[in-house]
């Protein structure tokens, strides 16, 4: 395998693990919000929060890995504006991957429900109960989420465009099974 033009196995593994977790937790968030009040709803909220905390920690790990391992260079014939856009979009994704769980945690805190990771490890309850602040943070959490969902679609669309139109290895280096022998 051409190591200079590929992500490390760790980077690939973390990318897909976090991708699946984010899509699942986002979907769970949309679903649970509409449920009538029930024990299942309380359970799903708890699981959603546990998943969010886990994603936050995995993203921190990804960030450390990203800063200590040089990612492969973009394919040579790419216009400069696309390089800059790709670079910017990736950092914005990292920012949102951290900001989304953070905003959820703070929202929960302001709404008077502390977060206890997996029902065992209590996170600091930073905000006092405050209805208005809780509602504001709910809007922030939602806005961050939909911004990220939009950006993820652009991210996936760009990867597909590279694969199907430019026919370069941008998608394959994150999805080694697509690699041509």
């Amino acid at each position: 395998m051409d190591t200079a033009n590929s992500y490390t196995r760790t980077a690939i593994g973390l990318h897909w693990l976090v991708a699946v977790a984010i899509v699942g937790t986002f979907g769970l968030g949309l679903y649970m919000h509409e449920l009538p009040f029930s024990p299942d709803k309380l359970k799903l909220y708890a699981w959603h929060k546990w998943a969010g905390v886990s994603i936050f920690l995995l993203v921190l790990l990804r960030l450390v890995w990203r800063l200590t391992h040089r990612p492969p260079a973009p394919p040579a014939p790419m216009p400069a504006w696309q390089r800059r856009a790709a670079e910017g979009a990736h950092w914005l994704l990292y920012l949102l991957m951290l900001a989304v769980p953070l905003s959820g945690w703070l929202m929960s805190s302001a709404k008077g429900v502390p977060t206890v990771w997996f029902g065992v490890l209590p996170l600091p309850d930073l905000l006092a109960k405050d209805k208005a602040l809780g509602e504001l943070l709910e809007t922030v959490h939602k806005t961050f989420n939909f911004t990220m969902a939009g950006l993820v679609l652009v991210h996936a669309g760009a990867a597909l465009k590279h694969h199907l139109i430019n026919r370069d290895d941008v998608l394959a280096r994150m999805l080694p099974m697509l690699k041509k022998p």
Partner: protein
Amino acid sequence: MKSLQALAMFAAVLLAVPAAQAVEFSQLQPARSAVSFVYKQMGVPVDGSFKRFKGELRFDPAKPEAARAVIEIELASIDTGFAEGDDEVQGRLWFDSKNHPIARFVSSSVKPLGGNRYEVAGKMSIKGRTLNVKTPATFSQSGNAGVFEGTFVLKRADYGIGEGMWADFGTVANEIQIKFRMAASAAGK
């Protein structure tokens, strides 16, 4: 004139001190009292409270055995920490507050435990069930009010609070910590 006023106040304070020791506290002051609770849902402690309650509280520090307390809590005034929860607990599975709008505590005995500590025993009636309960309480005086404060654990299943799909303690724990502060002003004030 100022110094004369000060002297008069000083004299009033001196006179008031011995009087305060023999006073009986008898008027429950809802505004200075509180009934709150902590319950665990999915392992997370959440605070709640009741906004409206009334009752009578008679207590003479010199004769604790003659003390009497009747507290009536309006269950519809609950704040569970969730707007959805406030509606849910009015239903049949929880308080069934349409048929049982009031939770009532009637004391049967107040035992001194030494210092300002007492053990208050009595009967708690919720949702048509009446059970004996006991709680430690401390008594303190603040201004012209006597204040009872204490915490005890109530098991919701004992009263059928949270039945059916809510009976599982994994989602909402059985043990509910109840905290109370009951302030009563001195008689005639």
